[in-house]
């Protein structure tokens, strides 16, 4: 069994209550941080831990904290990004449902380190049950003196509030989230200025993912150096992976970074293999925005070495033969799944979720959705595949926020690795309505993998 830092006590009855959470050592990090460490020392521990943002971008958390501007007399804010909306990702929901105090404890330590007196947890509106859980847990913590005025007699005051979103994927982007928290449409802001300089209400702000903030608790308890010993290379610590799709045991797993992908998919400790005895066709390893990979490139690098669950190994080979760890939303497709249909589905998602601010994204996502719908439903033309390639290239890099890239990459990677499946849909418009292309072409050894072109 690998080490568990976040989910160690997930099966303890009553771990969602303050009492049981305390019995299992909860809030030790708050005591240690507030009584024995300075804010600068906490930031230093987080830097030493090598913790990287768990929401998808993978930016070093300690570094992000150290960028926070600290002008005299200006409020500073910590905002937790719990707007978990990336298709394939459901780890934050799981953590908040079962161990809400882990997030609250992390929020207190992180707020103290950043000098925030008021902090917000922005939870996607659909997670009303989780909002109720968090509000209850915050009330418990406040009644016990972990929040409010003069915490533990240290003179530090902190108020923590939960803010519901309204149902918009774009609000997972940190500046859109801040706009939304200010009561506006979730249109991402142009950066710079970065939130560290001008964030919520124009004040210096740090926005961190739920899992990143919860990970601060073991980092403070055990020290940054201990945390950095777990994992591999620059991928330190443990990561929550949300596993979905055609797996025997989908769910949320805490892994030590560096676990071989093959072990994650097939071992009984994790996903237990592909459901119904079928074969693996493809995976999306880090949430819907990252490139889809055929089975062979999922399990092995282009040079034949095993691929690992880490930031570096998953992106090994660039977009030609690699993908990204992203948010850790691991989606597995069995041999009967249709890549064209799934790509169309994802395109519809991005079209629906585009905020409409930048024309390449607003127009391009809708265009891609339409072309993919046409191909999937048997009305495609051969030049449509090149048209799709052209559209996605014109979106990528040409938008204010990364939603444009996120919409382009699934389409680009699907064409790059599965072009023959798109062409089959076009050549066989009738057959493709009742049959699936299957897996045949992707079972080939690595050197014959259908890696077509790279721009």
């Amino acid at each position, binding site marked *: 069994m690998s080490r568990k830092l976040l989910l160690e006590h997930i099966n303890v009855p009553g771990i969602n209550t303050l009492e049981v959470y305390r019995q299992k050592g909860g809030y030790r990090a708050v005591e240690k941080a507030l009584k024995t460490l300075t804010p600068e020392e906490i930031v230093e521990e987080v830097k030493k831990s090598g913790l990287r943002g768990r929401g998808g971008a993978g930016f070093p958390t300690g570094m992000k904290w150290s960028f926070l501007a600290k002008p005299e007399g200006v409020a500073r804010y910590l905002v937790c990004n719990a707007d978990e909306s990336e298709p394939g990702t459901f780890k934050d929901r799981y953590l908040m449902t079962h161990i809400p105090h882990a997030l609250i404890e992390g929020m207190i330590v992180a707020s103290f380190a950043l000098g925030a007196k008021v902090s917000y947890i922005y939870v996607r509106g*659909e997670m009303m049950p989780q909002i109720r859980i968090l509000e209850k847990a915050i009330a418990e913590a406040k009644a016990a003196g972990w929040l409010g005025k003069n915490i533990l007699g240290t003179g530090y005051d902190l108020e923590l509030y939960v803010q519901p979103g309204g149902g918009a994927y774009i609000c997972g982007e940190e500046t859109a989230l801040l706009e939304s928290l200010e*009561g506006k449409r979730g249109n991402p802001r142009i950066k710079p200025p970065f939130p560290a300089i001008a964030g919520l209400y124009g004040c210096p702000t740090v926005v961190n993912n739920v899992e990143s903030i919860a990970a601060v608790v073991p980092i403070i308890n055990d020290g940054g150096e201990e945390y950095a010993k777990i994992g591999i290379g620059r991928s330190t610590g443990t990561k929550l992976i949300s596993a979905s799709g055609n797996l025997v045991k989908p769910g949320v797993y805490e892994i030590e970074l560096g676990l071989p992908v093959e072990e994650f998919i097939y071992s009984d400790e994790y996903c237990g293999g592909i459901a119904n005895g079928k074969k693996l066709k493809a995976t999306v390893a880090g949430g819907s925005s990252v490139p889809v990979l055929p089975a062979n490139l999922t399990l092995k690098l282009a040079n034949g070495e095993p691929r690992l669950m880490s930031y570096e190994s998953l992106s090994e080979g660039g977009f030609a033969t690699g993908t990204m760890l992203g948010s850790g939303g691991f989606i597995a497709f069995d041999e009967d799944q249709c890549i064209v249909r799934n790509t169309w589905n994802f395109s519809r*998602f991005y079209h629906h979720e585009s905020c409409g601010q930048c024309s390449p994204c607003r127009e391009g996502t809708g265009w891609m959705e339409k072309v993919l719908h046409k191909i999937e439903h048997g009305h495609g033309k051969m030049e449509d595949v090149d048209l799709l390639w052209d559209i996605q290239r014109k979106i990528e890099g040409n938008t204010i926020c990364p939603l444009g890239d996120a919409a382009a990459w699934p389409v680009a990677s699907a064409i790059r690795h599965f072009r023959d499946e798109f062409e089959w849909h076009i050549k066989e418009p009738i057959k493709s309505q009742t049959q699936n292309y299957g897996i045949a072409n992707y079972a080939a050894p690595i050197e014959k993998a259908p890696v077509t072109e790279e721009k």
Partner: protein
Amino acid sequence: MLKIEEQKPVVFSSELLAKFDDVITRYPEDKSKSALLPLLHLVQAEFLWVSTSAMDKVAEYLKIQPIEVYEVATFYSMYFLKPQGKYALEVCRTGPCCLVGAEKILDHLEHKLGVKEGEVTDDGLFSFRGVECLAACGFGPVLQISPEYTFYENLTVASVDKLIEDLKNK
């Protein structure tokens, strides 16, 4: 586009206004506009949808222009801008849920309830729609029911039938 469905004036109860008062304490004094999204959720929980007249009242309460409320209510997908069934069923239709049968659940609901997506059944009890990823991909197919947003996971045609019967008999 904002389609105006109803212009009947609405009355906010004192209980609802007390909830509003509680929400705005979370923000700095001059930043009460931050309360807009939570307030619209409270309105929807009370009336099951957000009418134009309700939005005007919210604007009045927050001392902002009505357009600032309209532009928010129309941007976010959770706010219903027309009346829904007492139970508004929202089924996730994004990738991972479709890999495990979400499309079948949507087709079945249309057949079972005898209405199209977005329409309300004659008895006023049900409406349904497909929504984008609900962040429960490992337990798909899933649906949620507003205004409580209770969650139902690992759906099958049989479990959906049972759910609908249970709600009818409630």
